[in-house]
């Protein structure tokens, strides 16, 4: 690097043009999507498919101009990003991307007031492909900027949080005619019920499999001969398709409910939460056991020796040395399991276990795409938030603490 810097610079060439190709590509795509794809669509009611509007009719020329200027600034900055003289280009781009993300819900508000006829109480504004693509590309740009600026995880989340709050505020206060919000308002109670069910199922499944997984991992350490067989069985469980496992549990649990009064009184039946929970735990065991086992196994023998040398007994060594050192890797297992369980619980809606999957599958059944979105988006959000939170916790617990 330093040698290259010391080399004489060729004169006459465009010395300022040293782009970050990734961001240049992303911002060009954003520009294309902003103008080329539909920003929003309007439908008079739930059944009719909407008419799409491009950016000029959705946001007016002022809105289109503002968006264009900001995205063009992004393109400009990404052309000089790698140039030595403009070191702050990345920071400027971060500010612009954040500004764009913050302006997006307001763009929807503008589109609502311009396009939705207030005389039609059922009229709804659909978010168009252009809006989604721009949002997606901006988030990708944020990921790239985070890497380039070497931002710590905490920082990037504290940057995203106010924007998330702003979105939430706009959605709940002023974006009534948005199709997504119309769907939400017509079943807001079901929504919070689904959220509760989803959380409960995931929480219980992760809790139970954490206990079981720890127990199994400890047993496997005690009886090394059982390791191969145990891992073979757990691997086998993972290859059974989730839909099939949910279906397969219908019969035995229905039989249990019919023949054991105790099971029936506990609320166990062929459909509902019982088969869902069993299947979720079955799937969660492999990542949980594998990570717990590897975590406990990988603690360096020298450290254990040192602990014994200090006069600790077996119990103390396990509780005060082995377990704390193994904790980050074990938490990694909890993270994988939680994210996986959030996804699988969606499928569990097919066997009547509730959760956000209910909206997804009902929406698919009624060909009501806004309802599908109402189910799918919270699932994506839940999975990302769980991933980020548990990742942050395990970063924090890693020896040396948070970065």
């Amino acid at each position: 690097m330093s040698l290259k810097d010391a080399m004489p610079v060729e004169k006459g060439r465009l010395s300022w043009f040293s782009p970050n190709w990734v961001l240049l590509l992303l911002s060009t795509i954003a520009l294309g999507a902003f103008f080329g794809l539909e920003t929003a669509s309007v439908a008079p009611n739930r059944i009719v498919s909407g008419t799409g509007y491009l950016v000029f009719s959705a946001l007016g020329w002022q809105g289109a101009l503002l968006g264009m200027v900001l995205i063009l600034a992004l393109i400009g900055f990404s052309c000089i990003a790698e140039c030595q003289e403009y070191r702050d280009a990345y920071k400027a781009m971060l500010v612009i991307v954040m500004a764009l993300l913050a302006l997006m819900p307001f763009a929807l508000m503008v589109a609502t007031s311009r396009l939705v006829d207030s005389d039609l109480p059922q009229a709804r504004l659909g978010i168009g492909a252009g809006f989604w693509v721009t949002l997606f590309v901006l988030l990708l740009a944020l990921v790239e900027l985070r890497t380039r600026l070497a931002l710590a995880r905490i920082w990037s989340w504290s940057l995203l949080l106010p924007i998330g709050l702003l979105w939430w505020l706009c959605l709940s206060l002023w974006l009534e005619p948005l199709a997504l919000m119309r769907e939400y308002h017509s079943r807001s109670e079901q929504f919070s019920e689904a959220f509760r069910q989803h959380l409960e199922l995931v929480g219980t499944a992760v809790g139970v499999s954490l206990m079981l997984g720890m127990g199994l991992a400890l047993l496997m350490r005690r009886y090394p001969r059982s390791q191969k067989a145990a891992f073979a069985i757990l691997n086998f469980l993972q290859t059974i398709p989730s839909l099939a496992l949910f279906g397969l549990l219908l019969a035995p649990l229905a039989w249990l409910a019919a023949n054991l009064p105790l099971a029936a009184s506990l609320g166990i039946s062929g459909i509902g939460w019982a088969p869902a929970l069993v299947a979720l735990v079955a799937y969660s065991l492999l990542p949980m056991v594998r990570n717990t086992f590897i975590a406990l196994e990988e603690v360096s023998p020298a450290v254990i020796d040192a602990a014994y040398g200090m006069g600790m007994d077996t119990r103390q060594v396990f509780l005060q040395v082995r377990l704390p050192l193994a904790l980050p890797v074990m938490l990694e297992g909890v993270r994988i399991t939680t994210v996986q369980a959030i996804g699988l619980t969606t499928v569990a809606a097919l066997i009547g276990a509730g959760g956000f999957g209910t909206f997804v599958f009902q929406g698919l059944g009624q060909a009501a795409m806004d309802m599908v979105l109402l189910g799918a988006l919270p699932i994506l959000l839940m999975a990302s938030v769980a991933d980020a939170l548990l990742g942050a916790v395990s970063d924090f617990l890693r020896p040396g603490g948070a970065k």
Partner: protein
Amino acid sequence: MTVNTRAATQASRSPWQIGIPLVWLLLLWLAVTGMAQLEGFFRLFEPDVRSVIYSRVDFSLLLGRHLFVVAIAALVTITLGLASGIAVTRKKGRDFLPLVSQLASMGQTFPPVAVLALAVPVLGFGTLPIIVALMLYGLLPIVRNTLTGLQEVDVGIKEAARAMGMTSGQILRQVELPMAAPVIMAGIRTSVTINIATAALGATVGASNLGDPIIAGIVNGNTAYVVQGALLIGLLALSVDSTFEQVQRRLKADESPRNK
């Protein structure tokens, strides 16, 4: 990890292991052709309903459609995944490496059902959304493992190859790819196995495949249908998974003498 490698080297010595995928395939074939003969068995699940064997569509046709969807998705994901994994580890594409590797790990948090659900509004009902969802979801493990595999190749070995006068293309084909092959294969295995299971969800968006009997069974409360669909998908997943396992063992066995 050590447990696995030890098991793998032991197993590669015993030839009968190769028979495992054949056994699963045979069972799958028997299940597809002979489902009607098992009527007495399925009668046990549902003594009262009129039909216990799913007969709306022939099982072999359902299996064929299921395989078709998974195969197309696998073909595209393997090509794209390998190509992008190789591209971003070359000198020219290195700028894109952080973004692609972060995407590949972040994408794992997206549940396949949600991806499928989001594909339907864009692509409509039928086989197309399920193929696209499978492609999107199957791409990630392949990209991630291609990246890991290629990045784990020892720099010293690459330098030695260059010093021997190999061109970059030769190094890629004769050194990097063969050494990364076991890891890449593991990614392909994960991707295809997950996709066989996920494809069954296509039945909820109007794609007809082995998920059909399961959905029909759940909707009509006919456990026998569910068992038939689950049995076939399970057998298919096990056949494919164990085939990949054998291929992986072959690759590992090929590589191990070189490492020592």
